[in-house]
């Protein structure tokens, strides 16, 4: 509890989810949550519940598709996988993010 945790930035959850699916392949909601927390080395405070509306939003936009399947320890779980549109979206958003963070960094350093 000593290290400060960051809230997920507005609008970045979608990017995190897309990236996770790209690198890990089809995954269920719990898996995605755990993975994001692991990768951020538990520095990210993720309200896991917000993951589901985000997944639904991506599905509505056609970035991911979902399908019921069996998990590694034999449970029914809904698996999400990236679509072609989703990959394109990821590329665009990642690029946006890079540009944005670079710009913010520059602003922070110069002033």
């Amino acid at each position, binding site marked *: 509890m000593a290290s400060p945790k960051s809230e997920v930035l507005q609008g970045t959850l979608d990017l995190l989810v897309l990236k996770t699916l790209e690198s890990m392949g089809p995954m269920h909601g719990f898996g995605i*949550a755990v993975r994001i927390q692991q990768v951020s080395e538990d520095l990210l405070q993720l309200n896991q519940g917000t993951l589901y509306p985000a997944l639904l939003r991506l599905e509505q*936009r056609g970035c991911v598709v979902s399908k019921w399947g069996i998990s590694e320890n034999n449970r029914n779980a809904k698996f999400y996988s990236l679509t072609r549109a989703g990959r394109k979206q990821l590329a665009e958003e990642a690029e946006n993010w890079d540009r944005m963070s670079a710009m913010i960094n520059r602003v922070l350093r110069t002033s």
Partner: protein
Amino acid sequence: MRELCRAFLHRLASLFRRRHLEADLDAELRSHLEMAVEGNLCQGMSPEQAHRQALLELGGIEQTKEIYREQRGLPMIETTLQDLRFGFRILRRSPGFSVMAVLCLTLGIGANAAVFSWVEGILFRPYPAVSHQEQLLALTGTARAESGPTDISWPDLLDLQRSCTLIDSFIVSKIMGTTLSNGDRAEVMVGSIVSANYFDAIGVHPILGRGFEPGEDSGRNAHPVTVISFQLWQGRFKGDPQIIGKTQRLNNVEHTIVGVMPDGFYGTFVGWAVQFWVPASMEENFEAGGYKLEDRSARWIEAYVRLKPGVTRAQAQQEISAVARRLEADYPETNRGRGIKLWPLWQTPFNNSGTLLPTLEIMVAVVVFVLLITCANVGNLLLVRSFARRHEMTVRLAIGAGRGRLLKQLLTEGLILSAFGAAGGLVATHWCSHALVLLFPARGGVAMHLPGEIDWRVLAMSAGVCLLATLVLGLVPAMQIGKIDVAAALKSDSAGVLGGGAKAWARSGLVMVQVSLSFVLLVGAGLLLQSLQKIRNTSPGFSTHEVLDTAVNLVPAGYDAQRAQNFQDELLERVKALPGVESAAFARMTPLSYRSFSSTPIAVDGYQHPSEEQPTVQYNEVGPDYFVTMGIPLLSGREFTRADDEKAALVAVVNETMAAQYWRGRNPIGERVQVEGRWMQVVGVAMDSKYESVREAPKPFFYVPLRQNFDRSAGLYIRTPLSPETMATALAREVHALDPDLALYEVITLQEELDRSTSPQKVALTLVGVLGALALLLAAIGLYGVISFAVSQSSRELGLRMALGADASNLLRLVISRGLTLTGGGVLLGTAAALALTRLLGNLLYKVSPRDPLAFGSALVVMTIASLAACILPGWRAARTDPARVLRH
């Protein structure tokens, strides 16, 4: 963009798979939790701890579901659907209230939409098929010597057409009744004599064949062609596709059918559906008075003009008046003192829009009243209900409903009510749109045609009314939401104390408005009733009950003057020989029928008219025994006899007023009067009677013998105690015996003729009466509601009074006096409004002042009785208050 669309469709689709998606979400979250719990257990937590931690990380199942649902569906639509469902349930739970409110709204909206559809159909868009009606104006002549508008002569019209630059086209359309013979059937039909440009100028084109070609309206009897209506084509010709080129006998002349007009086109005459059209060149065959196309003094045309785009009526009138002045200078002997006038279509003087205008104005005023009363009544109903729902609203606020959400819910309920009301209203309008014609009798066997026009304006009006009602309905209970202090209200509601002086005031105000509005309607009904009574009791100056009136039109049958005279003589002999016939006579015109008498300039020896113009007097051509038959007493001299024929000296009978005006107390018998250049000797003075309207003031009038001024279209008058039906059979037999090709017009009593002339008054009275009664009922219900609510509210006070020694009759008096106070306030308001408004009744009133005390007095009595009736029941309940029971609570 495509993404957004996709997302929206996705969301929309989810509305219809809610149950499935809910289960899916449930399963997904459950599997998530199970996995999380398993993971936590692996890390060595206790089962409870593992579960708690998993829930914590998820952020709560219900919360997750709620935000998930918002993302999934369309929350706006979902809550609206929810509101609708809830609204329906609430309204179903209090059916009395709902039915009452919907009925009130149906009545208000329906009455409004129906009347506005009549106004639309008769005044503003009378000819639905005609293009750009807003550019059309009616055209009539004026004469300094006559009060009303006159017809126009054909040469004058041609001159106007040549000289006016601001007017696109002059459109002649003169209505006429004609016998249409087809094989053995002869029917009276409505036709129209038109200029050749008629169909092109009004922008209605035939569906078969052609309209009239330029030039077909000139040349005496040169173009026997006709265009027929869709109805005639479908009915009489059974939709014959080969109809073009066939011939039809019209007034005994074969006409070639050259065109069929589209369905829904009824010509351009408010009141009648025109069945066929002929060009003006054939005028002589249909109109009395010979060939008139080259006669500038023969005024017979009714016409419209179409303005060029952007031209105003004032500009066009200026130009036309200039031309009319030039005509006056160029043709002084025919045009002196005459002008030309343009009228907006809804004031067209020569068709029924002019006659119906005052009635329609009153109808509009009355239905607006009814609408106001409706709104007041529904508002009152809602106020009562808002007390009943106060507790519900408070509870809903307490468990966390937003005020906005409650407001939306209430508005939705209002919307449901008014949607039902509007739907009911439109159904009622649909039924009523053609009902106006039911109030008017057929004339001469041809039914009137007065369609309503339901169109977007009427619909928009109803929708507007609906919206207004929704606001009123929605806002009444909503007003108090803002004021509710949840904690206090929850506590005090359970104690059953209802405050709200402001609300009581609002309810009383609404009731007073209702009372005052219905008072105005009652006064109006009273005034109209008295007028009608006065009209009924006014003697027209001739017998009405035992005199029958009919006609055999000889013009269409091709009779010339000589043959017609012989026929009339023979028929008269046969009729007089019939059992029960006391006397009979021919005359050209029936008094008090819708047509106006001819008038003519006259000159009298030794009489100098105050102005330069020759005085004009109306006259009638009558046969022997006319005065005896009609029961018009002769004050001196004699009536016409068979001896007053073509060969005898010209004679005339004048009426009292004419004698007084032109001979100033001298006895006119034996004096001379000059009519159209012919000198006639006055042989008799007849008592004044009514000529064109029962309401007219005495006016000069004279009679000339029919034989000396023969007209083939004369009517037959028979004095007999027998009924018209009995007489009709006998008459038809006699006519048939003389000529099997002739058709007899309907046989009616002069009383019937008189009744028909008062139909606008009757329509207005029926409407104001019916709606006034309804308004009275609504006001009484409103009053009852307020008083009984006040009684139930003040039962403690009543109980206390009783405990302190008041007896039942004291309490009864208390309640009733409260009701009468409200009524009194309403009546005061109503009196002020009625004094200002009854003048609107204007010329529908006859010999009754708009401030007639009898009408006001009887309205007061009726209103008082109604409010007493409304107060009796609550008063009786108050008087039976049991102090012991009431005070214990």
